[in-house]
């Protein structure tokens, strides 16, 4: 394979990374629907990615709901519309915050761990060893992790939504004395199926992104232990960047349906 430059060295390497990523993406779908699914490994990854992140997500969601409510109150109080706090907070949480907070937390926790784990397996030649022992490392390592993150991050997002709404309720009930039923009736009044659907689509997309980016970075790690660190770091940075890009695109598309 010749090292001939097409544009500049960095530009060429960027385009090459995009191409490799695209091929990795296609290979995932090929491997996912071919052969027997590694369910044990999938459950193990669901446990590691989803369950292990539940406490962190719950805590973050609770704080997000409570702080967002607290920060929104003065603006609404200026119009004498503090009774709208449940609607405002629920719209914000369901439409954007829950999915985004879950994804960002998971990209930090899960993405980096996948990148580091696969990277270390790559540099210690464990992946090569699996190939030698007639085990498909891609199916066993990548497909299970990507599927696990794609499945568990939406579920974490539901938890995050519920806990964030509870945080918001706590703040509202302490300040306005609103009852639980009144709060949740008011909160769900303004939420539509489109909001829930959009949120679910976002969470699936974010989960898939976190998984595939982490796996790609780890699976293709080079240069020994230094490569492991780079893979973990790149997993977080790139997945976060892609999450925001996806956020913009999905919001645009959902607004099209909303109108």
């Amino acid at each position, binding site marked *: 394979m010749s090292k001939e430059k097409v544009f500049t060295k960095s530009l060429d390497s960027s385009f090459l990374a995009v191409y490799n990523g695209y091929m990795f993406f296609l290979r995932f779908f090929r491997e996912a629907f071919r052969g027997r699914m590694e369910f044990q490994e999938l459950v193990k990854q*669901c*446990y590691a990615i989803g369950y292990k992140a*539940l406490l962190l997500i719950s805590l973050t969601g609770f704080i997000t709901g409570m702080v967002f409510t607290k920060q929104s109150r003065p603006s609404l109080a200026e119009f004498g519309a503090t009774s709208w706090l449940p609607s405002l907070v629920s719209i914000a949480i369901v439409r954007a915050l829950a999915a985004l907070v879950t994804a960002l937390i998971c990209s930090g926790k899960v993405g980096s761990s996948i990148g580091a784990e696969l990277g270390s397996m790559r540099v210690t030649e464990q992946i090569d060893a699996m190939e030698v022992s007639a085990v498909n490392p891609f199916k066993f390592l990548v497909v299970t992790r990507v599927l696990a993150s794609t499945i568990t991050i939406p*579920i974490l997002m539901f938890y995050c939504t519920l806990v964030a709404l509870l945080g918001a309720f706590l703040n509202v009930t302490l300040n306005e004395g609103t009852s639980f039923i009144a709060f949740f*009736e008011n909160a769900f009044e303004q939420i539509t199926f489109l909001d829930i659907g959009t949120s679910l689509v976002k969470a699936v997309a974010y989960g898939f992104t976190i998984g595939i980016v982490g796996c790609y970075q780890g699976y293709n790690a080079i240069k020994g232990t230094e490569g492991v660190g780079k893979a973990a770091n790149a997993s977080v940075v790139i997945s976060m960047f892609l999450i925001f890009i996806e956020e913009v695109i999905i919001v645009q598309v959902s607004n099209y349906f909303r109108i």
Partner: protein
Amino acid sequence: METSTRKRSITVGLFVVVGILIFVVGILTIGSMKKVFATSISVKSIFHDVNGLKPGNNVWYSGVKIGTVKKIRFLDNEQVEVMLNIEEKSQEFVRKNAKAKISTDGLIGNKIIVIYGGTQKVPAIEDGDQLAVEKIESTEEMLAVLSENNKNLLGITSAFKTISKNILEGKGTVGMLLNDERLYNDVDQTLAALKKASVNAQVMTASLSGFTAKLNEKGGLANDFATDTVIMRDIRATVGRLNETVSSANVMVNNLKTTTESLNSNKTSPLGVLLHDEKTASNLKGTLQNLESSTEKLDENMEALRSNFLFRRYFKKKAKEDAKQSPATESAVNESVKDTIK
């Protein structure tokens, strides 16, 4: 190892089930809020302007949510057909002659359809019915009225500004009143005078009160005047007699005037001669002087007669009789004097 895997699988299963449960509960809650799962009938209304109403907005009847807006479509020029889903359990309360209008949930909330009115005699709405609509003033129209009010308010405040400026500069009656010290002093003095006058008026009122009390006192002259009808009749009679007297006096004065004029004009009559003729007057005066001297001489003669022995006895007898009569005469004189004094 097997136990650990099993435990992990159960944990993941529970984690997924609870997550999906949250999702399902959320969906059902929203569904019940939006009346998605409730059986409903479809009615329509045709508006000229839907003010940004959207499918999914709520339908209220007497402040209770009974359905949602299903579909909005143009029917004709400036005619928008709005299809409403109304839940079946609320159907019986909405009558065919009920009306629909577009309102807002709160001051700046979402648009809603408000169904109102309807009479008990009219049957309940059915699937496919059309509700009459009532046009309400849009926010823009209300803002236009507000804008007009603002202009009026601006005009009023400008006028007040001019007035206050004039007052500050001492122009006009109010301005002078506020700024001119001389006028203030005058007003102050006037007020002091008024105060004094009011005190006097108070005193006068008190006097009047006393006076009227006396007037009302029974047996008083004024009270008799006011209340006794006999006195008034007597007074009228007296006044009538006085009038007659005055008439007689008038006639008498006229007669005296005529007499006087006659005396003045007729100088040949005896009285006229007495009044006007100087020669006669001097003669009369001389006669009177002669009469006086004659009287003196007669007194002397009478004294002489009293001394005469021929008449002395008569005079002594006369003196004795006078002495006897004098006490009775004196007492009678005294009585008459007393009567006069009374």
